[in-house]
């Protein structure tokens, strides 16, 4: 925030950074080779739906756009819409586990539709889920405002996370993806849809 913004008590809405999301497909290959985690094929975009009709219209358009290719190979399953207990909306896109490129394209379609509509500042994060052979859960979370990734690995049913695994993933992918260096921003997303 600039000096004038501080002086006048203004906050400029933060625009999302979208480009680094495309690093995901190659990171997924690296993650499977080095740590044995495979993509589940599910990914989600989380955003804060503003009140008012303009946003509702755009959300409807996005859903229609994403479901248009469902009949074609690689088109994926219909998109699920859920609202979590914190009031954020999640669009979950489900693909086959080897369709990482198509999944990222879907996620990006949501982003760009929202940004084009002027709702870029509403984007919170995107989440792509992975599993290993022991069925351990891992997800890579992309923070739109920072343009960075961080790992989130929930443990069991309670609010515990596998910090060792998360740091291991950061070690494995640190060179491929832009990782969030500030660990205080690795906020947990318990019970996120598509996890």
């Amino acid at each position, binding site marked *: *925030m600039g000096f004038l*913004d*501080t*002086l*006048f*008590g*203004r*906050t400029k*809405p*933060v*625009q999302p950074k979208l480009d680094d999301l495309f690093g995901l497909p190659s990171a997924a290959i690296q993650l499977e080779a080095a740590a044995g985690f495979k993509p589940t094929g599910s990914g989600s975009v989380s955003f*804060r*739906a*503003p*009140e*008012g*009709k*303009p*946003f509702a219209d755009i959300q409807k358009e996005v859903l229609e756009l994403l479901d248009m290719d469902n009949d074609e190979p690689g088109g994926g399953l219909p998109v699920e819409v859920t609202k979590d*207990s*914190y*009031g*954020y909306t999640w669009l979950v896109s489900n693909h086959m586990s080897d369709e990482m490129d198509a999944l990222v394209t879907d996620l990006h379609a949501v982003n760009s539709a929202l*940004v*084009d*509509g*002027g*709702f*870029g*500042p*509403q984007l*919170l*994060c995107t989440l792509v889920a992975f599993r290993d052979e022991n069925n351990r859960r891992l997800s890579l979370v992309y*923070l739109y*405002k*920072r343009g960075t990734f961080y790992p989130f690995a929930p443990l069991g049913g309670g*609010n515990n996370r596998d910090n060792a695994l998360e740091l291991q993933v950061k070690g494995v992918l640190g060179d491929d993806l832009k990782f969030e260096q*500030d660990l*205080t*921003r690795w*906020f*947990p997303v*318990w019970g996120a849809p598509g996890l």
Partner: protein
Amino acid sequence: MAARTRYAPDRGLTVRMTATMFLLGLVFVAFVALIIGIMTAAHASGASIILVAVVFGGGSAFISLFFSDKIALAAAGAQVVTPQQAPELHGIVDRLCALADMSKPRVAISPARMPNAFATGRNSEHSVLCVTEGLLYHSDLTQEELEGILAHELSHVAHKDVQVMTYASLLAIVAGLLVRFAFYSELFGGARRSDNGQAALLIPLIMLASVVVYAISFLLIRLLSRYRELAADRSGALLTQNPSALISALTKVSRGMNQIPTQDLRAAEPLNAFYFAPAMKLSGGRGRGVSLSTLFSTHPSLDKRIEQLSKIQRELGQPGAEPRGLR
């Protein structure tokens, strides 16, 4: 190219805030010029008093700026809580900070039963966001309303309100100290100086000027504080994109404020400037125009705040998504 945006800056608020700060600066300059004038005329025998006041005033402002988080936490009897102790609260703050791209302040809970919240600290790395138990457990706020209140407080942090208000209060602190020092030196040193006609005149003059400056800057600071509240309301509502929740939270909390026994309220008064809703209501003029209670209060009236938020509500409902900055 500037990104497409749906937010128009509130120019009216910016203009009013600029005018207030300009007046504060003007009073400051006039005060300094007056003091220098008096000193030159009287050959500087009151210089020590002024120097002491500046050092004391500046020192106390500096301390309150650097320790504002600790002072406020201690005054509110609040404890910093970990994400394990208050997962819900941390979850809301986490998400709001990620949405606003700001670093997360520490989160504290105060045992007060009065539903309220405050944020303090000189910058976002050293800030703390505190909510009362009353707000979390004893009020009928929904999660969205709580989020609206937290977004308002986070906006205070983002706007660096503690710093801005400390700098703005500096003059008032020094002027207030000068009044006291001049009064005491008149009381105890008056006889000694009576042989020097100019010096005897000097002290009352400084005192009079300080009283006037103190009164004017006090009113301006309160005015500035009310504008900062409106700015935080606005930024908070734009962050959550849910002004309606903030409106209902304000209504509920303000209603709750009136139901709490007076003793609690008075004890919370020193922290008022940082609170979400003022704990103490000044009784006074209900008539038209500017009443005393409006002039002195740190927070704008509920009606003013709701009026502004309703404007944002209407803006969000409008289809016009054309970027205003590009036209």
